[in-house]
């Protein structure tokens, strides 16, 4: 009887899971399906509303691959992602090690570091827009005091990508700090004591003890950061709209611009760019899951 009850329990579990299952099918699977369908058909505004768009096969994909924006968008996506990750992780790691020491106020100050991460992105992005303003921005004013001439952060094609990377790094530091800090907490203190007995300097303790033991946590932090950074849209769109002239366009903003950025939307190509982005995110995601499995095992 006990066993029947157990088997019974395994199936009643699906009653509890039914709402979420229906939800996932309706609000994840179906939008994704519609998105793939969009990318395979020739849509006009009219056929988008009334239906009846002709099947176009891979035309949309061919179109975006031969689009002059494709190369720059790919390059910017890579630069934006790699630079963001490197700085967020490096600074996050340094801060985690620093705050891992015990000193008065360390807990409170560490909590304050979360603020940038919790602010709505539109708030951070508009604040950075004003700080980086060419004429009246505080950043150029500060550079001026050390004798550096004004930089056209958001309006020059040479600096737009750097500007959005700076803002994105600022937003990403708290996440890296918190995750790496929790990783540090799980390293046994005895290891540091042993290293200290062997006469290791602080720098040696970091490279020989902290860094290797933190490798699994670091890998996951970087992969989660990668997945998140590939998706970044708000910051770039609000600060530069991908401009000037595509100089800060990534796949995410390009896809949005094709689909929603003008009065004559091209949903098909927009969806195709989006699907390329999914492939990139999922590839990173599968690596993440593999790593996580290995860690659990």
């Amino acid at each position: 009887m006990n066993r029947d009850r157990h088997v019974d329990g395994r199936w009643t579990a699906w009653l509890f899971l039914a709402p979420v299952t229906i939800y996932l099918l309706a609000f994840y699977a179906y939008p994704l399906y519609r998105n793939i369908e969009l990318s395979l058909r020739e849509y006009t505004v009219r056929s988008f509303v009334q239906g009846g768009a002709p099947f176009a096969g891979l035309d949309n994909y061919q179109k975006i691959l031969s689009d002059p924006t494709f190369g720059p968008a790919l390059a910017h996506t890579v630069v934006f992602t790699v630079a963001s990750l490197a700085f967020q992780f490096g600074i996050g790691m340094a801060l985690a090690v620093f705050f891992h020491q015990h000193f008065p106020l360390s807990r409170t100050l560490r909590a304050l570091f979360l603020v940038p991460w919790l602010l709505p992105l539109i708030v951070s992005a508009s604040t950075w827009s004003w700080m980086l303003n060419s004429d009246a921005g505080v950043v150029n004013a500060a550079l001026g005091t050390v004798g550096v001439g004004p930089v056209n952060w958001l309006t020059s094609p040479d600096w737009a990508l750097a500007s959005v990377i700076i803002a994105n790094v600022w937003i990403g530091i708290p996440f890296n700090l918190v995750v790496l800090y929790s990783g540090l907490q799980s390293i046994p203190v005895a290891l540091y004591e042993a290293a200290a007995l062997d006469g290791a300097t602080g720098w040696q303790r970091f490279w020989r003890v902290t860094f290797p033991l933190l490798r699994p946590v670091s890998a996951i932090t970087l992969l989660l950061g990668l997945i998140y950074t590939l998706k970044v849209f708000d910051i770039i769109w609000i600060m530069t709209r991908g401009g000037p002239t595509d100089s800060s366009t990534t796949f995410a903003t390009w896809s949005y611009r094709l689909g929603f950025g003008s009065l004559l939307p091209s949903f098909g190509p927009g969806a195709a760019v989006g699907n390329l982005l999914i492939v990139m995110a999922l590839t990173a995601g599968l690596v993440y899951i593999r790593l996580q499995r290995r860690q659990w095992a």
Partner: protein
Amino acid sequence: MKRLLKTAVGLALTAVMLFPVYWMVNVSLTRDQDMRADPPHLVPLRGTLEGYRAVLDQQLPYLGTSLLIGLGTVALTVALAAPAGFALAKLRPVGGGAFSFVLLIAQMIPGIIMAMGFYAIYLNLGVLNSVPGLILADSTLAVPFAVLIFTAFMSGIPDELMQAAVIDGAGRLRAFWSVVLPVSRNAVVTVSLFAFLWAWSDFIFASTLDGGGDHQPITLGIYHYIGNNNQQWNAIMATAVVASVPATILLVLAQRYVAAGVTAGAVKD
């Protein structure tokens, strides 16, 4: 002495990190004529509340809509995710592992893809520019994460607690409702916190699915404000300050839940 030196360094680092937040507040209090001062005024000595007056005049309806959307998203997310977490953690269904895997994958889909799919569906259903439509879309940011948090948390609740309830004659629904859910208060707080913040901060769904609605959230309020009016930066920053208030309050009230949520593998959208 060395400890105090570290505190000083820590204070300096925090000051640098939070400078943009300070600057937002400073600009929100700066008078129009001082806005382009060179060098910029570091403190709003002759400040003005003009910007905040503009917020009160123009942005209150947006804030109300955001509050409504945030609370709706929280309710929907908890209602969907708590039973699912209970099932995965305590009833161990056939295919539960695969289900969790799907939830992990779901969090990796970029928002722009979901937005485009939702736009196509909402257009046909006629629910574009509606608050319920936006609540549904925003909940996709939180639901998979919430199920995973509930599962992790509820796995920690001893089986004996539930078995005792079942022996006392309670059904599984009853055991969930009267035993497991009350014990899971921390998980409910963590999930609600993130669901609210993500819905409150959402820009991409708002701009694609509610760009022409009568009821728009505060993120669009700020966005339109920048677009139509790029002179009055004190008003723009005042709106930004007001829009950050929920995040600040939640951080102060629920600091440890925030850290718990991040380390539980949160993927920020």
